[in-house]
């Protein structure tokens, strides 16, 4: 394996560079995936059938918690990558750990939110609107869940095998994924919740 020491560890081999570019292209596909979900949500927003309307079911408090938690986690994983570039393994692991914890909090609040919807009669089957909403939120939530496992695996690997070029590469790519989920959430926060409560 040829190492290029002029670059950060995560870019140091050819395969690492391929992985990073490939993941960016995957994120391009993810943009379209979420765009499709947003399209359907916007179409369904006013199509509530006999079910509740957006303004009737949205609550600002859980949404605010989710937003600030996810925003902070996007910051901490950025710090994690920064620590990794300084070669500070323990600091990096701490930041990654904090990120995952915040992710877990986000997920917990989201589950609470879904239960709330269920109780006020907005289930998956209720109307076009609820189906569109829950699929958009659910797809994002599923991404976060997957990210929790993925991040955990990476922490374990860094612990066990240290900051190798491979692990650095995986960690960096995971950080891209996590930031991207935050970007998606910004749009959900703005154009689902705030617009819906306006």
């Amino acid at each position, binding site marked *: 394996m040829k190492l290029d020491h002029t670059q950060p560890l995560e870019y140091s081999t050819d395969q690492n560079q391929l992985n990073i570019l490939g993941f*960016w292209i995957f994120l391009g596909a993810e*943009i*379209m995936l979420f765009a499709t979900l947003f*399209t359907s949500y*916007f179409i369904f927003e006013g199509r509530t059938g006999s079910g509740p309307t957006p303004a009737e079911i949205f609550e600002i408090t859980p949404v605010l918690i989710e937003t600030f938690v996810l925003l902070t986690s996007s910051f901490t994983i950025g710090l994690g990558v920064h620590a990794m570039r300084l070669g500070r393994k323990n600091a990096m692991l701490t930041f990654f750990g904090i990120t995952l914890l915040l992710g877990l909090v986000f997920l917990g609040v989201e589950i609470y939110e879904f239960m709330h919807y269920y109780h006020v009669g907005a289930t998956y089957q209720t109307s076009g609107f609820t189906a569109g909403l829950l699929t958009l939120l659910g797809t994002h939530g599923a991404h976060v869940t997957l990210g929790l496992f993925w991040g955990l695996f990476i922490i374990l690997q860094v612990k066990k095998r240290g900051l190798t070029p491979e692990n650095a590469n995986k960690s960096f790519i995971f950080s891209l994924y996590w*930031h991207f989920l935050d*970007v998606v959430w910004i749009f959900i*926060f703005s154009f689902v919740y705030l617009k819906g409560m*306006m």
Partner: protein
Amino acid sequence: MKELFPAKQVMGLVFSLVLTLVALLVHFTDMSFAVGMTILLVTAFIQAFLQLVVFMHAGESKDGKAIYTNVFYGFIIALVTIFGSLLILIWDM
């Protein structure tokens, strides 16, 4: 300890929080739909861009150009799809 908190990223966080608070004005103050949507559009896109540049280091490697092209291509097609579909199924149906 200080070296673990680079100014660029801290500023990024602060700016994100500010943008979020500005967006929240839409909820907590009384404004027209048009003004509200304008605020949301502006704050959301600035924040997305901020994440891309400050946190995701999109332009740092020599593939930066390809990465930006990829993301903007995606954004353009996403917007075309969203607004095209709204045009077809709501505004002009």
